[in-house]
């Protein structure tokens, strides 16, 4: 193993890693190019092409994006709140209570990791119809709230809480809900954060089920709005579509760039458990 060969191999490897990075980010860079230049430069790359915000102005004017942002924000918050509630309780039950049927219920719950709401669009649609929840934000959110993934994550987190902490809280007179609230939830904070980030980015980006369930501007989330924004079939021009696309991804993208470390850590935490 001579040092020279090492550097050469290393150089090749580093270039390959960089090249891959470039390829991976190129589509996004291209979207930036198209969005910030006049439509005439969409496929003409000139260094000094004039910059413009006109595409964003047009995109914003063509569709009620403000409303879509609000809808997505409401949707994501509602789902997160619901998931924290349902998954905390169920995770606590599985972690600390030995009740008959627990293992069976847990196995059934885990099935939902596989049988995703996306797959059940046909029947879930009928159920939502029956509940009168078609075209409501609750209708989009409900199937995701009791998330097997969340239950599993929190169960694992709760299991690691030392029994002594629980005993101490009990001595101070906490009931079983008090223990959950005072002891378990604080200890699992990092897991909540991780799960929350994953959940928010998942549902910010979710498309199929919201597409099925929403009918109107008042409920449509960003992704669905964006999809039908591109739908006037002979095509709004690319520059405007790029601008709309960037608007839709902007909040998550900015958050990601600012809190890169937390994002990556969260996805790791959520992944390895």
């Amino acid at each position, binding site marked *: 193993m001579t040092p020279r060969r090492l550097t050469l191999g290393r150089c090749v490897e580093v270039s390959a890693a960089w090249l891959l990075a470039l390829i991976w980010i190129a589509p996004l860079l291209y979207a930036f190019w198209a969005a910030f230049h006049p439509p005439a430069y969409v*496929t003409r790359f000139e260094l000094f092409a004039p910059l413009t915000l006109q595409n964003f102005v*047009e995109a914003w*004017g*063509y*569709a009620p994006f403000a409303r879509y942002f609000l809808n997505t924000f409401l949707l994501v918050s509602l789902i997160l709140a619901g998931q924290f509630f349902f998954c905390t309780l169920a995770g606590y039950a599985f972690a600390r209570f030995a009740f008959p049927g627990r293992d069976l219920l847990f196995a059934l719950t885990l099935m939902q990791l596989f049988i995703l709401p996306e797959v059940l669009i046909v029947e879930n649609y009928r159920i*939502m*119809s029956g509940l*009168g929840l*078609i*075209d409501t934000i609750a209708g989009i959110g409900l199937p995701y709230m009791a998330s097997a993934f969340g239950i599993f994550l929190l169960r694992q987190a709760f299991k690691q809480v030392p029994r002594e902490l629980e005993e101490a809280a009990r001595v101070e007179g906490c009931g079983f809900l008090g223990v959950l609230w005072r002891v378990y939830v604080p200890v699992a904070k990092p897991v909540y954060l991780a799960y929350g980030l994953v959940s928010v980015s998942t549902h910010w980006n979710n498309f199929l089920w919201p597409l099925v369930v929403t*009918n*109107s*501007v008042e409920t449509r989330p960003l992704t669905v709005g964006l*999809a*039908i924004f*591109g*739908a*006037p*079939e*002979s*095509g*709004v*021009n*690319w520059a405007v579509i790029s601008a709309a696309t960037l608007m839709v991804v902007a909040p998550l993208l900015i958050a990601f760039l600012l809190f890169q470390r937390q994002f990556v850590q969260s996805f790791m935490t959520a992944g390895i458990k």
Partner: protein
Amino acid sequence: MTTRTKNLIGGLALSTALAGGAALPAAAEVELTMFYPIAVGGALTEVVDGLVEDFEAEHPDISVNAIYAGNYDDTRVRALAALNAGEPAQLSVLFSIDLFELLEQDIIVPFDSLVETDEDREWLDSFYPGLMANGVTEGQTWGIPFQRSTIVLYWNKDAFAEAGLDPETPPANWDEMVEMGQALTKDDGSQWGVMVPSTGYPYWMFQAFALQNGIELMNEAGTETYFDDPAAVEALEYWVSLSAEHGIMPSGTVEWGTLRQNFLEGQTAMMWHTTGNLTAVRNQAEFDFGVALLPAKERYGSPTGGGNFYVFKDASEEEQKAAMTFIKWMTAPERAAAWSIETGYMGVSPAAYETDELKAYIEDFPAAAVARDQLEHGAAELSTYEGGRVREALNNAVQSALTGSAEPADALAESQATAERLLRMYR
């Protein structure tokens, strides 16, 4: 609560508001919800919103909630979903060819039962008969034309001149289109002779070829199709030959959505596209262009296309009346003229072309009249029971022929067999 008591309360509320001297706008007595699609680009939603506002200003007792729902398919899905879920929707603009699906679901009412006065009946007769074809079946009228189009040929005059062709003469028949296309196609692939879109609505374009070759693809009752007729096969063979044999069109499918961009960027010297694109092309083209009838074979021909107004059964009588008022207002000659100028869609009645605005516009921009002129060669758009699946079968045949994965005759025979199977139970 009966409608009458509701009105009474509404009236009371209204008079209290007035008596109180509040400067509130008069509360609308009837609220209408309407879904509508847009299949061409641009800020057309603004145009529709503007029209609705004008209408509400003139009819303070009716408020209209117009919901843009994507393309025609999306809109049908959304409107049916809303109705199934018991949400209010009293009328919608839906694909003219959705008629049989809507009948099958039993959710629309015929306009014959909505018209009351002689004036109404006159209005019902005021549209171009060619545009009514897709709205009439079982002896009644179910759809009123609104955003209607035909397919036309757009050609780039600058490219024609550059290729040594007369920039003012578009191809009049199939052979000429091939000849001119060959002169226009550049070897380096930077400019093609012609592009005919084959995604989005392949069946529609195919229907144009078939009509030009003298064959209708379905019967009026929507229960039979003739996809494998020799004339239809010949039509598809011609379409395929444009790329496979003559090399004047790119091989594979041509994307409907990006075709306008292709034309505007000079990637193709001619395109077949809906008239609904006319205004957008006019606003964005940096070259001189013309619009013409599609070339002929046995005859000229193009199917009509686009959206009709439908009124839903579930609406109360009062709502249906309000919907009629709205539809009549929207299709009145002045509005039809304005809509046509804004978009390129056709003015739906001869009276629309008699308005001063549209006359002046056409004088200045004769291309705007081509769609109307083509109407005398028009035919109903492909519309059958199980329409979605029948069209999909034909789309697949067209696409597999164009991409070379099947011979036109085989592909069409297969789609005909599928259509037979689907339609058997409706005969």
